[in-house]
């Protein structure tokens, strides 16, 4: 893909699916400035890995996975920074990142889902992102994360158990009662 084609495709995606990526970024950013930087970082990552995107993967779902991964890395960096700053008490008391993200919307189902997904162990989280959010097959997921298909199946099973328990109070929204 030439740079110009890549630019056009990335700009098109940012216009078509910007609100989706922005919605995910808001779950990880603590301040408006953070949100601004994070959204830009998400689109830079998109530009970097777009040439290697699996064409079978739907654009919107693929973007969600990319955005969630960039957001999660951002959150981990921020936690490490906050822990370090806490260690050195003499830092200025500008703890705009403390506590749950104020940018995230109210306690919506989407917020609950992302919080539960981000709390999963690393491998399970990756499997859920690819299998559930992106909609990849077990085989494609195994290739994407470089693991055996059995590992993917087992991880998904364990992740769904955890997510089911975390979202148990929303069960009326996803579990039909005629079972």
């Amino acid at each position, binding site marked *: 893909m030439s740079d110009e084609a890549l630019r056009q495709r990335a700009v098109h995606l940012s216009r078509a699916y910007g609100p989706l990526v922005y919605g995910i970024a808001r779950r990880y950013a603590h301040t408006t400035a953070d949100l601004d930087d994070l959204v830009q970082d998400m689109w830079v990552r998109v530009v970097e890995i777009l040439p290697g995107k699996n064409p079978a993967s739907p654009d919107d779902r693929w973007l969600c996975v990319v955005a969630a991964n960039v957001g999660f890395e951002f959150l981990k960096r921020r936690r490490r920074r906050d822990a370090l700053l806490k260690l050195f008490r003499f830092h200025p008391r500008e703890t705009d990142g403390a506590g749950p993200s104020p940018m995230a919307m109210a306690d919506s189902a989407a917020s609950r889902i992302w919080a539960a997904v981000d709390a999963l162990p690393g491998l399970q989280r990756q499997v859920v992102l690819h299998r559930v959010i992106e*909609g990849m097959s077990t085989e494609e997921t195994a290739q994407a994360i470089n693991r055996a298909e059995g590992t993917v199946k087992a991880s998904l099973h364990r992740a769904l158990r955890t997510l089911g328990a975390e979202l148990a109070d929303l069960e009326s929204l996803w579990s039909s009662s005629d079972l």
Partner: protein
Amino acid sequence: MEEHDESVDEQLIEFIRREALEEVPVPPELQARIERRIEATLATRHKMGWGSTALISGAATLALGLANPAGFDPAFVLLLTLAAVVYGAGVRQLTAVPAPRVQEGSA
């Protein structure tokens, strides 16, 4: 029982797929900054200029040549130069850096 579990899993998966994607309108000025950042990222992918590439290639050629003083026949020099050019191009590619963030209010 296993069928029941699978059915519940499917419903949970469907629920997550349906509910996880939530759209929030992007402020127009942020959208403009995103597009500028995308363009800046692509424009600065090759950060190192050809001058620096040539310099590195030349230095590599000299270093390799000096390390093999007995091997200075024309074919060897040509091979060495080719290897150094490839090396320089590789360094040039590897030193590409992401574009700086586009700040609020910047043109």
